[in-house]
């Protein structure tokens, strides 16, 4: 019994670590309020505490994202206090004239991200964020955005191609070296 309780505690801890960021992102997108989004996610995890591990085993991310989405929609319906989302991009200056390599060389990671995702669709940006900021798999991103794994793969590939097309010319000088390494 004690082992089971310990396993469950560790499982919840792991789930919080792994999913709190993407879940808050999802809730924030719906509620438009960071505090509200955090509360929604906290409530989601409290509900997760109340479920037996064996029931959730194998479909944890789908369960979490679905509960979180429903909860956020409930809250919005009740609270009606949607506000514009504060964007991380406000933190950085506009660096459109620089190439990613130049930005990497001056170690300004926030500017780099802003530069790269500028010009992508909202859905593509979301996938990029979930993939690289939160490290989610295709399947987990699909759970969060209600897409199939195939859709996620296609959209991510498309987004990376767009970025490559946009900056490919600037990086051509360094490309040949990269190929030789392969």
């Amino acid at each position: 019994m004690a082992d089971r309780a310990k396993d469950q505690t560790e499982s919840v801890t792991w789930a919080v670590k792994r999913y709190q960021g993407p879940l808050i992102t999802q809730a924030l997108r719906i509620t438009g309020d960071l505090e509200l989004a955090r509360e929604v996610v906290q409530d989601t995890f409290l509900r997760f505490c109340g479920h037996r591990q064996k029931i959730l085993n194998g479909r944890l991310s789908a369960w979490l994202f679905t509960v979180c989405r429903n909860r956020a929609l409930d809250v919005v319906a009740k609270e009606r206090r949607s506000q514009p989302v504060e964007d991380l991009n406000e933190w950085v200056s506009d660096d459109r004239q620089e190439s990613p390599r130049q930005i990497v060389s001056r170690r300004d990671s926030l500017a780099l991200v802003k530069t790269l995702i500028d010009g992508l669709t909202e859905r593509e940006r979301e996938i990029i964020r979930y993939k690289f900021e939160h490290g989610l798999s295709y399947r987990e991103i699909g759970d969060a955005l209600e897409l199939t794994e195939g859709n996620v793969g296609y959209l991510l590939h498309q987004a990376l191609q767009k970025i490559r097309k946009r900056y490919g010319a600037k990086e051509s000088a360094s490309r040949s070296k990269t190929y030789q390494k392969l």
Partner: protein
Amino acid sequence: MTIDPSDPKWTAYVMNELAPEQRRQIEGILTRSPEARRLVADIRETVGWFEEGVETDPQLRLTPEQMTRLDGGTRASGWVSQAVFNFGWRVRPTLIGLALVVIAASLLQKFFAPDHEWRDSRAEVPLIQRETVSEPGSAFGESFAQDHRRNQQPVVEAPAYGMTVHTVPGDVTSNDSPSKFERRDTPAADPYVAASAEIITHCLLGVGADGYHRVRELVGQGALPNDEQIRVEELVNYFPYDYPEPPRGRPLSLNLEVANCPWNDRNRLVTIGLRAGTNSRTAAPPLRIFLLLDGLEIRKFTFDRAALVQTVTALRERLGHNDHLIIVESSRPDGAFVRVAASSPISGVLESLASGRSPRQFPGANDAGLRSRIVSELDRRGRNELVLVVDNLTSSKTDGRLQNLSRLQREAPSPTAMSVLNLGKDSPWGQSVVPEEVLVRSVRNIAQAHHFWGELLARSRERVADQISLQLEFDPEQVRAYRLVGVDEVVRIPAGHRLKVGPGHELRAEQEVTALFEVVPVGENPRPNRSRPLLAAQLDYRSVADDRNLSEKFVLIDDGRNWREASNDFRFAASVAAYGMLLAEAPYQRTINYYGVLELAQRGLDLDVYGHRLEFLELVKRTVGLQKKKVRFSAG
């Protein structure tokens, strides 16, 4: 062989999302097709840009309070916790929602392979090479062995900016006027002390955390602090760091690290962390804490009840086996003393006090009655702490209660300290009613509650070392100049005078001190010299447990690492220092702004047991908002 670049399988291959069979197929194509290799290389490079740049937004985390609630929910096995912790929103499991869950789960179930491995992209980087030198005599650092030569010389002490810098002249050749300390109100072009002229620096170790509390209070109230209210070294030393325990048989550990300086790429930054261990030979004296709630309208619950519950909960977690917590509620004649056990539900205790149903009530709780009752409860063999909890610092009642407690303190038969815990919105800074020796802190959340108790418990812990002296000697072949971060006064000692660290420096169990030195290397494009130490340090102190005088020597070798490769503690301490310098508009920072501070701090968040570092991120963001409005604190 032609390939289709628009096929998403190429990206899926790079992202490791393919099944083993598909992966083998792709690898087969790659061995045959230069075009495919070129495409995969393109994708890898593009992915690499993101991996270089993306960090999780710290806002996308639950707050420390929410984590605490979750922790409580987990411990309660969830079944009960839901009723206790929910927010009053009722679940609306519509049929559509349920159907979605079931359908999505059943469709995805066959694809699921639970991956319970938590990957942390920020791998721990070992600290820079550190050696303990048993015998002096290496070419560098030899001056330590020759100190006796200077012992006959008179002593000069120089008060500086919080952490005092003393310097030994060594081979001073400058023509500065003697016996004058030079203060540069207007920063010069090169505001650093030349290392070739002044070789040894001593740091005083008595650094408090008041500066951080002051900045946080002011920023919380919507005003930026003035320059004189900002103490960079106090900001840095507010935070606990993860320095290792001292080696067996030693009461202190010295931790040195160097990397490039985040706010000035041309310079190096050295962090010095001194940590006291516990005195294993003597048991810590028992501590009895009296939490005096009569400054609150407990029966009306007009104060921040959540903050009080969090405060008491945080304290209970930190108390030792021999320590006791006693809650005193005496605002009415039927006041009560309640001993809080480790298993007591805090909310329940407060409820019973508020309703007057406490079983340990005592009659006649006027001032004299209360004093005599508390005196009778004091621990006569150990230490006692009287903590007055108020929600209005400026009221005349608070003043009267403090005077009453001061009398009690004088009458107490054993060591008894006082502190004031403010749950109200008013700031403790500038309040004349509180005596200077009384610890006064405002608490709004559990992170602040933990810090308050940390400070309070630290002063009751046993001394493990005193007469501490730390000497540092930078290698003049590598270091052109240096500056103790937080010290904006350049102190010069006239030739022929011996410096000495002021006596009486001591550290209590588990206490830490952190200092940062910004180092200007010799030459324009210096390369790290792994064959010579950048810095030699000598730590002298008396071990209180066995009354022995000890001396340890260390050297620090610079391997040229970047701050991104440094420890979390290094990055976080540097971010706090950079924040302080930005606030004070110090002339030393060149390449960092508040957004850079945020990035730096985010990369040092890992060791944040009580949520102090997350709170710092919030402080920086709030400061950014105030900077736009340019609201400065005004005493008037």
